[in-house]
């Protein structure tokens, strides 16, 4: 049998245990779910907001005590409805789905933007246990939207963290990719992990390629079934839900025509990425 028995992943409901406000637009939701509590960094789950929608979310944390957390940015109708839920209210869960980041030792560079920082924090915690040395570049629109900065500082050390904001309200003014060339020129890395806006990840990939550094990127696409059947999330010959969401440098080379360029819309048509 496959590693993805659909019956074991069957729909279930659980209650919200804790809701934490991370920024003006992002909240972290924690709930109990035995299966997702076994998730590895990079995996995602499908969260059902009863009567509204079901959305894919990267797992921010999974604890041995059976709790799972996801960080959710208010971007549309579904996430707005989720933000309005209170502790104790019921949600549905399926998962965990997809593959995970490989856990590498050595000198690591992480480049994250927005809620893409969530799976990277989960990974950083695991890497810290392996005594990896992590250098962090994190970006957001504004100072208030820089997610999990203290948590990353604790793991990486303040001196190994560069923050960027688009409005210049904190750290380097610009995108997460702005200080990247300087960072890459100064240090030699064994591995780059990246998650965030896809155009940012494409830039990270392109820079890494010129220097011959391995990269793993966590991609996002429209998700419906999450078990590799419906085709909504395909990029090249790969299904992001099942063959990803984490893609290796070799796979990224194969989908260069679409990576950071286009995605499939609700009707299956290829459209440019915003």
């Amino acid at each position, binding site marked *: 049998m496959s590693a993805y028995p659909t019956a074991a992943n069957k729909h279930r409901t659980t209650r919200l245990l804790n809701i934490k406000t991370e920024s003006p637009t992002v909240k972290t939701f924690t709930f109990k779910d035995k299966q997702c509590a076994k998730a590895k960094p990079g995996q995602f789950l499908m969260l059902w907001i009863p009567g509204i929608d*079901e959305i894919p979310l990267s797992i921010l944390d999974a604890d041995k005590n059976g709790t799972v957390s996801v960080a959710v940015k208010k971007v549309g109708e579904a996430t707005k409805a989720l933000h309005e839920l209170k502790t104790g209210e019921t949600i549905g869960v399926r998962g965990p789905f997809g593959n995970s980041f490989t856990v590498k030792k050595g000198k690591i560079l992480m480049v994250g933007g927005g809620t893409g920082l969530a799976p990277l924090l989960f990974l950083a915690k695991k890497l810290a246990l392996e005594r990896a040395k992590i250098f962090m570049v994190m970006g957001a629109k504004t100072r208030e939207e820089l997610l999990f900065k203290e948590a990353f500082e604790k793991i990486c050390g303040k001196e190994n963290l560069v923050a960027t904001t688009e409005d210049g309200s904190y750290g380097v003014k610009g995108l997460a990719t702005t200080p990247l060339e300087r960072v890459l020129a100064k240090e030699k890395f064994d591995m780059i992990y990246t998650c965030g806006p896809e155009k940012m990840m494409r830039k990270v990939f392109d820079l890494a390629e010129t220097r011959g550094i391995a990269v793993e990127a966590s991609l996002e696409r429209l998700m419906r079934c999450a078990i590799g059947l419906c*085709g909504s999330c395909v990029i090249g010959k790969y299904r992001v839900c099942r063959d990803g969401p984490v893609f290796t440098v070799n796979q990224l080379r194969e989908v260069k025509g679409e990576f950071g360029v286009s995605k499939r819309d609700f009707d299956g048509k290829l459209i440019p990425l915003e």
Partner: protein
Amino acid sequence: MTGEKLVNLNVNLAGLKLTNPTMLASGILGYSSETLESIAENGAGAVVTKSIGLKPRVGYANPTIVQTKCGLINAMGLPNPGIKEFVREIRATKKVLKVPLVVSIYGFSTEEYAKVAEKAVGAGADAVELNVSCPHVKETGSEIGQNPKILAQVIKAVKLKVDKPVFVKLSPNVTSIADIAETAEKAGADALTAINTVKAMAIDAETAMPILSNKVGGLSGPAIKPVALRCIYEVYERVKVPIVGCGGITSWRDAVEFLLAGASAIQMGTAIALKGANVFKTVSRGIEAYLKRKGFRSVKEIVGLSHRR
């Protein structure tokens, strides 16, 4: 190779030449040339695209799928880019695909079915499969396939426009699938695919809410295998055109059972989630081993064999 009989997995399906009897079922992947090619590389003898209509459709909001203990219930809502856009994908697919390409089509009227079929074949489709059995979109799918008069009109209209084999995918959600099959054959269907999903729903006990946004959908997977097998057995007794068996097949043994019931080829979809995309290879190898072990030389020899036992 002394003494050992060679087993031939080739199937001639209403003129389509398949090198093995496994096919990708409609609705699964099938948006892009890359995914269709990848399924063929995993051993499928032919592939069927997602159902394509005249105009683009975004499908339903999530949840569009419910994973249950016994199978999957889906109500995707026929998302597709529309035939005008999809002809490009058909052309791109035909350039790389080494197996027959069947384009699944649906319409909200007889004219729409005919128009989409004509464009699909014009772009290079080796056959079309009429979706007259989708259980979750109004005014198409099973609403056509459950009405013998309209079904016959649709098939005749499509046959007038295309010179390639026309498959008709039947719904199990009817009083007598054999009656419908006979209607389809008389109207000119070159082959029948049986079955589409079984109309179903899921309710969450905690919230008391139907889970699918469309409330009802279609059940697929191992749960519907016995239903599908019975349907094929009944249809085989009434029609002469080849039958393509579909519904809950995940192993070579399932596939062999469908061939014995009367199917000339089989389709799989949900099995990809349960067993992985290489299920096509493992199933056709299993069929081959079965034929060898039982002393048969071709797939044809066992099609409908259970009716003679």
